[in-house]
Structure formats: C-alpha cells, structure tokens
C-alpha cells in the first residue's frame, strides 16, 4: 500500500502541436517540398525493386552446385557449369587491388596531411589523385593495356613465342583496379587525419616522440576505423567494375594459368570475375545463359551490399567513439531509473 502511495502520478501526456499543413505555404515551396518527397520515395522504390527483382530472379536459379562447378562452354544452360572461376577471379582481383591500394593510399594520405612539403608538390599530388578519381575506368583499362603490353612488363602476363606481350592478366587488372580504389582510401584517410585535433599531435611531440612515431603509434591507430571503411569502399569499387576486367583480364571462361608455377602462373594468366560473367551470360553477351547471369548477379549484389553494411558498421562505431564525453554522460544519465 505504502509503495503505491509513493509512486507519483504520471504527468499528462504533452499535447503535440498539430501537424503543420503545407496549405499555407507559397506555391513554389509546396512544389519543392513535394518534389523532394517524391524523389525520396521513388529512390526507395527503385532500391527495393532492384533487391527484390534480383532476389526473385537470382534465388530461383541459385543452386549450391553453381558455387563449385567450373564454367563450361555450352549452349544449354544446364550444361554450362557454375561460376566457381568467376568467384575465384573476383577474390583474386580484389585481393591484388586492395593489397596495393591500401598501403599506398594510407601512405599518400599521411604524406599529404602530415608532411605535405613542399606545398606545391602536395597540391600537385592532390590534383593527380583527383584526376585518377575522375578518369572513367574504361580509360584506365585502355591505358593499362598499353602499359602492360610493353616488353619490360612481360613477366606480368602471357608472352607469345615471337616475344609479343599479351598484356592481360590478373596482375594487370589487379594493378589497374588499385588505381580505382586508391582515391577512396586516400580520401577517407585524409579526412580522418584532418579530424584528429592538433593537441593530440602536440601531446605526443611534447613527450619527445618523433613525427614518425606519432603517426605510427597515435594517429594511425586512432583512425583505424576510417581507414578500414575507405578500404571497404575501395573493395566495393573493385568488385563492381566491369570495364577493366573486360579489357585487362582477358575474360576467358575459366581461370587459365601460364606456365607451371602454381600461384604466379595463375596471376600471370587470364580468367573472369562475377561482373564479366554476368555480362557474358546476359542476353547481351556471348554465353546467353540468363539464368546463370541472374544467379551470379545476385551473388555479386549480396557481396557488395555486405561490404556496404560493413562500412556503415565501421563508420557508426567511429562516430560513437568520438562523441563528446558530455553527450555520452547525458545519454547515460537520461536512461538511469531515477532520472526517468
């Protein structure tokens, strides 16, 4: 009894202000408002449509066997095999591209934001990164073909008996893919470094730490989530690109190694990825096996969506970690029983 007496009566539910009607707005504002609203909804519908369509089409044709069978040349869809090799190809290309782009991108970003001397050189490097970011991937691919067909780069791809260099290989495609991912990694790393307050750097210098030691032990660890999200974004770009694969990977049906060295041979050889597989098997391509194309496209979509989800997770983690201490305390305080 006494307990119920101490419970205070709940305050009356606050009356919400009535929803504002747009009727009173000027016509231009109303049109603008509805335009924004419609665009947003339309985009949602499109996104949902893509996922649902790919889900329906893809799952319908998805068989476990597709993941373990090599593709085979056949006009019958039932005999054209699975996409083991394209999945393998996607993984190899992504690995090569990321392994090159991640260290190079982080190094570039650190140099530009932490050293950046002489200033003119730093500006030039920044512009160069912008240029690379702006070049269409098909142009990068053509350029890559030119470069990798040079004799001195013959060790990266197949060589004909007469000394001609084929110029198309996992190496060639992976290296050019690194250029695609590089600007994204540089961008996110630079942005994160710019957000680290100078007092953190000064604190480290004041302890007698060198600039290099500060970068290695203070700055890089503290921006690890941002670097990771930049890398994940770059990987998404690599996985999704078709032009570079079509031009620089040779697009053979199966992974075709060169020579007998196991790993090196594969990397010097040609193959395909999920993107080129989808392209070739779509009604537009040579394979004409739309069912396989749908299934592969579905796998590709899931792969990229998973990466995006990962990026969101990483970035969200970073935000909460950097939130102000006051905000965090208020959040905790607000949820305590006696403050309710």
């Amino acid at each position, binding site marked *: 009894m006494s307990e119920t007496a101490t419970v205070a009566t709940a305050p009356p539910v606050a009356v919400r202000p009535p929803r504002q009607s747009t009727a009173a707005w000027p016509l231009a504002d109303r049109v603008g408002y509805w335009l924004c609203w419609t665009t947003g909804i339309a985009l949602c519908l499109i996104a949902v449509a893509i996922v649902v369509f790919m889900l329906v089409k893809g799952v319908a044709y998805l068989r476990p066997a597709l993941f373990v069978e090599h593709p085979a040349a056949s006009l019958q869809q039932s005999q054209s095999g699975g996409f083991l090799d394209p999945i393998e190809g996607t993984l190899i290309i992504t690995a090569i591209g990321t392994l090159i782009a991640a260290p190079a991108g982080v190094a570039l970003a650190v140099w530009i934001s932490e050293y950046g001397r002489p200033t003119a050189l730093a500006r030039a490097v920044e512009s160069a990164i912008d240029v690379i970011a702006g070049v269409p991937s098909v142009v990068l691919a053509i350029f890559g073909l030119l470069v990798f067909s040079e004799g001195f780069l013959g060790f990266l791809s197949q060589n004909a008996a007469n000394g001609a260099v084929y110029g198309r290989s996992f190496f060639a495609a992976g290296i050019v893919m690194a250029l695609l991912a590089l600007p994204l990694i540089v961008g996110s790393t630079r942005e994160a470094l710019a957000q680290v*307050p100078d*007092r*953190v*750097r*000064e*604190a*480290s*210098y*004041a*302890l*007698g*730490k*060198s600039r290099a*030691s500060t970068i290695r*032990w*203070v700055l890089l*660890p*503290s921006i690890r989530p941002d670097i990771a999200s930049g890398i994940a974004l770059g990987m998404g770009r690599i996985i999704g690109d078709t032009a570079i694969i079509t031009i620089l990977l040779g697009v053979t049906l199966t992974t075709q190694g060169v020579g007998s060295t196991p790993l090196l041979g594969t990397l010097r050889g040609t193959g395909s990825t999920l993107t080129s597989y989808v392209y070739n098997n779509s009604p537009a391509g040579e394979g004409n096996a739309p069912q396989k194309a749908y299934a592969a496209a579905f796998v590709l979509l899931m792969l990229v969506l998973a990466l995006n989800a990962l990026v969101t997770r990483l970035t969200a983690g970073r935000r909460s*970690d950097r939130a102000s*201490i006051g905000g965090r305390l208020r959040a905790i305080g607000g949820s305590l029983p006696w403050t309710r």
Partner: protein
Amino acid sequence: MPPPIRRIAIDREPTVAPERPIANGLAQAPVTEAVARRRSERPDPATVRERMRVDAVWLAYGENWVVRDVTLPVRQGEVLAMIGASGSGKTTLLRSLNRLTEVTAGGSRAGRITLDGEEIHELEVNDLRRRVSMVFQQPNPFPMSIYDNVAYALAEQRPPRGRRRRRTPQLEAAAEDALRRAGLWDEVAGDLDRSALRLSGGQQQRLCIARALAVKPEVLLMDEPTSALDPLSTLKIEELMEHLAVDFTVVIVTHNLQQAARVSEYTAFMLGDERQVGGLVEFGPTDKIFTHPVDPRTEDYISGRMG
C-alpha cells in the same frame, strides 16, 4: 633560422614604485605547509642551480612578434608561475622552452634559451622534449587505453619488438609509478585497459600529467593545467604540483592568481595585448610580487584594476 631582431619601442620604462603593501592583494592567500616551508627555506638564488635560462628572447609567429626581450631564470626545485592577461605571450614563451613553437608554422625565435647551459637549439629536439615535458590546457589523452597512454610515453622511440607494446614487468611498474605520482592510480588501477577518453576531465588531465612524468623529465611545463577543470580536480592537481616541485622544476602558466600565489615560489608577470608585444614586467619571489610589487602595472594587475 630566427628572423632579425626588430627593436620595438617599449611604451614605458619600468618604474620603481615605493614599497608598500597592497591593501586588497593576495598576501593572505592560503599557502600549504609544504609551500610555506619551501618559501621560508628558500636558498640564496645565487647558490641554486639554474636549470633553464631565457636570455633576451624574442618570439614571433610569421611577421607578428608575440614576445619581446624576456630574460628569466628557471631554477632547480622550484615552481615558477607566469601570470598575465591573455595575449601577453606567456603560453608562447612556455612553449618555446621545449621548442613546441616550432610545430606551429612560422614560429621563430631570437635570443638564447639554455638548458643546463646548453642552447636548446643545439640539442636533439626529441631529447629536449623528454627532458622538458609539457602538460597542456586541454586534457589531451591519446585515443587508446589508460595503460597504453602511459606506456607509449615510456617506450623508447621504437617499441622493442612486435606490433603491440609488450606488458613487460618493468613497463608495468614504471606505468604504475607514473600513475601513482599523478595521483590517479587508485582510481584506475582496476581497469587500465579502459579507453582514456572515458575518464572524467580531471582524471584525463592527471593521466596527461602521469604521461608527462613517465618520461622522467627534468623540467615540467604546465600550460594553464587546471583552467578546463572543476574546483575539486583543480585542488587535486595543485596538491600534486607541491609534491612534484620536490623532484622537478615546474613552470606553470596560469590565469588564476590565487593559484600562482598558492603553488609557486617565483612569479613572472607578463604584459601585452594586440597593440603591444608581450614582455616581462616583473619577476621575483611570489610573496614579494603579490605583496610588494615594484612595478605599478603589476600592482594594477594583481589588485584587479587591469586585465
């Protein structure tokens, strides 16, 4: 390379005022036993070792002069307080003592600053900063665990091996020692792996002090170390300073006159603003500065008529 010295007319020569006590000064500022004892037992300045010496130093950022012609001794085992209004160049002068002014683009210096008789520009900069360590106005712990904050300071330039700083017994003992000296050990001992950013402001500042002490400096520079803290944390840090002054030479910049009167043996009063480059007006024993200042400008500042 420091820019050529450009003499700037000093608007007013220091004048010698008659010695008389300030009515509403801080003569009665409560001083703890330790400080009172150190003051009463103050040895003759001539016999005390001069740790650092600032000799006719001018400092500039780019084209703007910030500090003009300051000469100041920093003696062993003492707390030197630098007081003065904002813009008087105290912080810049403090930062120049371990060459942190060089981090800011355009920072330059004329005149000599010596540590144990050696010009600090001739010392290796990271060695200098380990010998002359610094605590900042804003608590600035690194975004890592409490233990790692101290261990990072302790570690040599390159950790011995491996990616992680190893938790060797020596490192752990040294980290504990530093945290104890900073009076933080009892509060964090149970959870050294917690992120340092989750500590309260006062705890963060004491962690920063622990970090600065971990490098075993000879001189500890403190730039308004309590101005971002609440009174209770301030008290803790002031208590800390009393203990520190036994082993270290402490130079503290503060806006809080009471604090200067409480913790320091010597006080330097600096004056300057946007129109006038900051300079040293008066330097002397704290009790004398706060009761019988020689310069009327010091008296104005201390009695609250200015700044």
